[in-house]
């Protein structure tokens, strides 16, 4: 009998488990094998820990190799015995129990360890990680008495832990540093759907949350965030990432970067030592999923039999194992000019699919809600198969692949007569088809009027139109709607209606629920959506500055040379010696090249470099001046004349009213800019009759005008009504602006809105309907509570500091080529 070579394995996780299996299949007697395992147990399926945590499986269900298997194959498994040293000279491994084992070949498979964020309190009792069965047992113990758990990390592991703990009856909050969950695997649309699904199971999610410290005496009591929020917690689970275990190898003098460096033969820098699993770094990559580890394991098994197999790296894909949530992602899903994307969104069923294609090949996949084609797409991606032939139907999956392009009317034709088309109004297919044929309906509006289908939230409009096309054939000409932009077929009005009806409160929410055709919108729709959300959800929606045009993002007007202009407010056109002196000082101090009196009764400082803006604002703030919003789709100026204060014809205090209006209205965001004026008598020196809203003071009170403009089209105002008191004038003006905020399309001036809806409709709501007017006024004031913060002062205090400083400078010498 030949003397068998000795193989020692350090670590008993999934990767070496697979390697040994493969080795024993082919060459059962090649080696005498000893395994060191720090964990006091056999090899089990680590990725199934989540079902054990949630109670769907038991530990026994997830065993890969039981004790009998080791016995049968004659392996020595040293359970609970950590390897503490490798002596490469003597070719020996020392265990924690003092034992020393010789090897001819050594396989290192030490896996990786959870990363612990170095914050105060990280060592308290009750701070857990999520890696092995001990962690699961500790979590189950804590969950017995209920209480609350905070999970730090909204990646795969964190979400699985959260779902499991929730299942076990704990009150769970997930904290995630980034704005969307699983941002490494998902784009924002899928991240949004995931967040909704997680919240729907009662788990709280806080994104963009940075943990400051874990609080507690000797046990965890809670978590404090950077913004000062404190969350109570009986346990804290840290699931923020993993780090390959390379210490033992490093101590033995092997080459270790992020992980233990191996070549394509899975060999370390010592020819007799191989490594496998999460502890290795291959061609610069350390993997954290089993599929690539299994590919490595096959190569290891072959090499241990003196084979010549090579490992050349893997393409990985991710799935989340939380029951009821289907998501799949793989590859590279960033955008790029030479890349093309196919997006399919089905809001009703919560489905989102996105394929990224480059040179006719699939290179990225994100699937949410319907992942059944994940494996098929993934195979196409890994094979680098050309998708040219099936581009049209690719997104519909394998069943449609290669078939003829889908006929949308065929889908509705196939629906049974009693299929519900309009959920809001409970209208079924036969009712719509019946109404169309019976009454000879040909337009969507007629169908809406007759049947109520798509008359509420409107999300079934597309289906109704398809039914009309199916019933009327070529006789159906769909209403021409002007879509917002190329990213959607919906008009501005439809989008606004749906934002309210479906309570959509973020841009990703709108894009998903309204089935946007691009992943991230464009420069046309993003600013519009941002405005609609700001206007519709005051106090709830967080302004997305990256979706604002530069002027509104940095609160100054960009000029042709890239510098900015600064226009401080001069309430009602009034100023003072102090203000003028402060302006003069600022001009001198910063060497501002131009100072101009604007057409809006105030002063413009032109030619300020961006970096100087905060300092210029700080000085203006110190003299009591705030942003004039000369850059805003919002209230610009309220021009006034001198009125009863000085003028021999003045009938009312036009200056005073102008100042009051401006103080009430400043800071408000509107579909387009709003300019106002108050003249003290019909001579109208403040030019109130060519403003969006104008007030002409008369002996008996105030004449209120709307819908003027003096830009590209000169347009005189129309009189809306007359009121007697200043208080009424203020209330009516605010009510009109609020109505415009709710109905105006983005970039539609008041006069265009008025042309569209009619002055009568505005009068009906603002003048004749007192309850409506009061409600509009109150809504306006409510939203002003959030809007009236001087944006300059906020930025002087440090907000958005990144906007005003270059990221870096590269000096002359080094940048010279």
């Amino acid at each position, binding site marked *: 009998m030949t003397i068998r070579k000795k193989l020692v394995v350090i670590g008993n996780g999934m990767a070496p488990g697979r390697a040994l299996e493969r080795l024993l299949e082919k060459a059962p007697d090649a080696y005498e094998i000893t395994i060191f395992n720090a964990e006091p147990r056999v090899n089990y399926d680590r990725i199934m820990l989540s079902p054990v945590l949630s109670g769907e499986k038991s530990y026994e269900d997830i065993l890969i190799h039981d004790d009998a298997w080791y016995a049968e194959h004659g392996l020595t498994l040293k359970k609970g015995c950590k390897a503490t040293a490798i002596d490469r000279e003597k070719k020996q491994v020392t265990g924690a129990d003092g034992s020393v084992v010789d090897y001819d070949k050594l396989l290192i498979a030490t896996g990786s360890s959870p990363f612990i964020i170095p914050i105060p309190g990280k060592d308290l009792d009750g701070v857990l990680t999520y890696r092995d069965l001990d962690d699961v047992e500790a979590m189950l113990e804590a969950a017995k008495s209920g209480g609350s758990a905070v999970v730090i990390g909204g990646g795969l592991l964190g979400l699985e832990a959260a779902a499991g703990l929730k299942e076990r009856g704990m009150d769970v909050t997930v904290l995630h540093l980034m704005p969307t969950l699983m941002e490494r695997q998902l784009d924002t649309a899928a991240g949004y759907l995931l967040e909704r699904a997680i919240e729907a199971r009662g788990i709280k999610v806080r994104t963009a949350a940075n943990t400051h410290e874990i609080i507690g005496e000797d046990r965890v009591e809670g978590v404090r965030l950077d913004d000062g929020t404190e969350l109570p917690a009986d346990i804290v689970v840290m699931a923020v990432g993993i780090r390959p275990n390379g210490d033992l190898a490093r101590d033995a003098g092997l080459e270790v970067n992020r992980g233990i460096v191996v070549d394509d033969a899975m060999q370390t820098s010592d020819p007799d030592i191989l490594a496998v699993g999460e502890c290795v770094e291959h061609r610069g990559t350390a993997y954290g999923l089993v599929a690539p580890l299994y590919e490595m394991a096959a190569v290891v098994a072959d090499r241990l039999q003196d084979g010549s197999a090579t490992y050349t790296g893997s393409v990985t894909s991710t799935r989340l194992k939380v029951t009821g949530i289907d998501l799949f992602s793989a590859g590279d899903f960033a955008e790029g000019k030479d890349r093309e994307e196919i997006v399919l969104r089905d809001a009703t069923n919560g489905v989102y699919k996105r394929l990224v294609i480059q040179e006719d090949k699939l290179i990225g996949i994100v699937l949410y809600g319907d992942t059944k084609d994940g494996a098929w797409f993934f195979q196409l991606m890994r094979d680098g198969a050309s998708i040219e032939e099936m581009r049209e139907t690719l997104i519909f999956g394998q069943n449609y692949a290669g078939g003829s392009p889908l006929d949308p009317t065929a889908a509705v034709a196939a629906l049974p007569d009693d299929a519900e088309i309009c959920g809001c109004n409970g209208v079924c297919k036969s009712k719509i088809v019946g109404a169309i044929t019976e009454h000879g309906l040909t337009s969507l509006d007629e169908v809406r009027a007759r049947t109520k289908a798509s008359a509420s939230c409107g999300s079934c409009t597309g289906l109704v139109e398809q039914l009309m096309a199916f019933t009327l054939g070529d006789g159906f000409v769909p209403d021409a709607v002007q879509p917002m932009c190329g990213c959607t077929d919906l008009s501005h009005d439809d989008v606004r209606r749906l934002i309210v009806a479906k309570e959509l409160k973020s841009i990703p929410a709108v894009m998903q629920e309204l089935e946007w055709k691009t992943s991230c919108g464009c420069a046309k729709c993003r600013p519009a959506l941002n405005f609609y959300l700001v206007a519709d959800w005051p106090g709830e929606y967080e302004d997305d500055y990256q979706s604002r045009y530069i002027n509104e993002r940095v609160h100054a007007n*960009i000029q042709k040379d890239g510098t900015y202009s600064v226009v401080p407010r001069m309430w009602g056109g009034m100023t003072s010696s102090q203000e003028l002196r402060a302006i003069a000082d600022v001009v001198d101090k910063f060497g501002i090249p131009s100072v101009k009196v604007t057409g809006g009764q105030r002063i413009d400082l032109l030619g300020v470099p961006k970096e100087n803006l905060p300092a210029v604002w700080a000085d203006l703030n110190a003299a009591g001046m705030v942003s004039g919003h000369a850059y805003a789709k919002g209230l610009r100026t309220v021009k006034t004349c001198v009125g009863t204060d000085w003028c021999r014809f003045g009938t009312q205090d036009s200056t005073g009213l102008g100042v009051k209006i401006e103080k009430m209205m400043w800071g408000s965001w509107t579909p387009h800019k709003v300019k106002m004026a108050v003249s003290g008598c019909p001579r109208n020196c403040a030019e109130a009759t060519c403003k969006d809203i104008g007030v002409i003071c008369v002996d008996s009170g105030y004449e209120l005008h709307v819908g003027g403009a003096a830009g590209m089209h000169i347009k005189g105002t129309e009189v809306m009504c007359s009121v007697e008191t200043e208080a009424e004038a203020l209330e009516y003006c605010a009510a009109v602006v609020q109505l415009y905020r709710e109905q105006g399309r983005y970039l539609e001036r008041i006069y265009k809105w008025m042309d569209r809806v009619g002055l009568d409709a505005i009068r009906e709501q603002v003048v004749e309907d007192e309850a409506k007017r009061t409600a509009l006024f109150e809504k306006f004031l409510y939203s002003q509570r959030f809007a009236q913060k001087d944006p300059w002062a906020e930025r002087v205090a440090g907000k958005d500091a990144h906007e005003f400083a270059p990221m870096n400078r590269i000096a002359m010498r*080094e940048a010279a080529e």
Partner: protein
Amino acid sequence: MNELSPTSTEPKAQHWFTIGRLSDIPRRGARQVLLPRGPIAVFRTQTDEVYAIDDKCPHKGGPLSQGIVHDGAVTCPLHNWVIDLQTGDAMGADQGCVRTYEVRKDADGLVSVSLSGGSGKTE
């Protein structure tokens, strides 16, 4: 602000300048890096791709770093040309091209840019 020196010891063909962290750039946003010959704009997309191009629109020199970033493109703040960040080409009907630079980010989130060689097109 620091004066930077090359951070790599690679042969002189390509110097990588570390310019900061990925987190210094807002998602769907950009920052400027100042050079004696004019600023370059470093962009970060929604999906954390990073691109660097001259901060100068091929139309009339508008500062592209100030535009709205959508997908892999930026819309110039002055007259709305749309520039592809990867190639530097104007998209749609507009004709023009801006120089691009190679960028890399490492595992710790540091972003470096190479001013020479690379995929850059000449001005």
